[in-house]
């Protein structure tokens, strides 16, 4: 860059590069235009945030968002199709690093699960007999009372503020806000929080706002599964009383409570994860239980939305 005129500053004793003179009106007009554009855009963004934040489900802005999403949907699908081979290649390469340890772990797990499956067969038979004898009446349970609506994951919000996915099924396929979402192997993924006719946004279990009442399958200890602060995919089973027994390796499933006409949005019995550590201190009221989720939230490409076979209409 050519150096501008220089002058020796008497006060500082250094060389000062002077600003070249340009017409004041031209400079101020440019600055004014710049301020008007950015100011206008900031105001427009704030108006959109306010309207979007205050809008009800099915309101006018929801319609605008639905229309916008529908217009952009073919582009997103095309991008997904183009990117899929590259994503597969990345996943395949990454899996090579863990293949040996994964195989050893899966062999151990397989042998353990074979034993559990045999024990479960006996337990199921006993359970059926007892229910028949007691004329036991139970609430909705998974998967008997639900239809799974399959949907592909089409996107994620960027940034660390929301743990969510967007799926390509919406109210047009019978999905409603607060429907539970599971992975292809039936483990809990999250909850539908926003909806258009063709799309739905699913809040993942790893979101700061997510909380699920859960129970230890073996000991019946209850608590609330939440995201562990400061981690990406670890969960904690909170509010577990100190006298309750809970061990590493225990399976945690949704509790699906029902009381005074109110019920949990999650059906009971959906697998959530496995206990990886249990700790307690003298000062805490509750145990500190860490849970490793069964779902790999970073690798979700398809999910099932659990739509009740008979939907109860809220008053």
């Amino acid at each position, binding site marked *: 860059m050519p150096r501008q005129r220089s002058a020796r500053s008497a006060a500082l004793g250094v060389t*000062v590069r002077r600003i070249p003179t340009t017409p004041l009106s031209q400079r101020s007009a440019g600055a004014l235009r710049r301020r008007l554009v950015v100011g206008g855009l900031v105001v427009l963004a704030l108006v959109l945030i306010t309207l979007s934040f205050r809008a009800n489900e099915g309101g006018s802005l929801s319609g605008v*968002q639905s229309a916008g999403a529908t217009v952009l949907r073919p582009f997103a699908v095309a991008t997904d199709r183009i990117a899929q081979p590259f*994503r597969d290649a990345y996943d395949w390469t990454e899996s090579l690093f863990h293949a040996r340890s994964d195989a050893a772990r899966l062999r151990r797990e397989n042998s353990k699960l074979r034993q559990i499956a045999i024990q479960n067969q006996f337990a199921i038979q006993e359970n059926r007999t007892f229910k028949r004898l007691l004329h036991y009446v139970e609430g909705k349970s998974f998967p008997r009372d639900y239809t799974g609506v399959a949907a592909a994951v089409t996107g994620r919000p960027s940034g660390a503020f929301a743990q969510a996915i967007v799926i390509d099924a919406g109210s047009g396929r019978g999905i409603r806000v607060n429907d539970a979402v599971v992975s292809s192997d039936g483990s809990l993924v999250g909850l539908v929080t926003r909806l258009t006719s063709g799309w739905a946004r699913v809040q993942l279990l790893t979101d700061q706002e997510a909380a699920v009442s859960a129970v230890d399958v073996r000991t019946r200890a209850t608590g609330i599964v939440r995201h562990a*602060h400061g981690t990406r995919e670890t969960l904690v089973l909170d509010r577990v009383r100190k006298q309750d027994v809970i061990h590493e390796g225990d399976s945690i499933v949704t509790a699906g409570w029902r009381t005074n006409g109110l019920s949990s949005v999650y059906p009971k019995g959906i697998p959530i994860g496995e206990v990886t550590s249990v700790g307690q201190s003298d000062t805490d009221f509750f145990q500190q239980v860490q849970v490793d989720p069964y779902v790999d939230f970073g690798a979700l490409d398809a999910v099932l939305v659990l739509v009740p076979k008979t939907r109860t209409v809220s008053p």
Partner: protein
Amino acid sequence: MTTAVGLRAGALVFVAALLQVVVVSSTFVFGGTPDLLLLVVVCVGLLRGSIAGAVLGFAGGLVVDFLALDTLGITSLVLTLAGFWAGRYGETTGRGRTGAPVLAVGVITVLAAVFGLVLHYMLGEPVVAHQALVTALIPALVLNVLLAYPLFWLVRKIVGERLALEPTAEVEFVV
């Protein structure tokens, strides 16, 4: 900015927004994800000025908010300011400096995370500062900085560099 350059820049930001939502946000590298759209907006701002940066940041953010069914305007607001700031830096002190893309990307990544955190907090959403500013931000910052030069080069190839530059509004001390 001519119409052809404007269209090329618009298409670039649109593709970056699509890739961000569909591919990049679910591709975790070292526990984090780069912010491709932010990078492109910063590069466009540096190369084409503050107005182009702000307008394309707003448009790109709106595409992300539509596709992710997010609160409309949040990403737009963050990216408008990011594009504007990058543009002003490119028009003034960052002009012609080799390290400008890396410095702008690094600083704006951190500022965008802090501003996003404040914005979500103000909207009453539960946010954990440690998660947003440490766990997610550090890998994202490293990835963004690593991608800064290659993307700057690519964006310059596509949208070119603004020729008519306004005079530097600075005083430089040469010792």
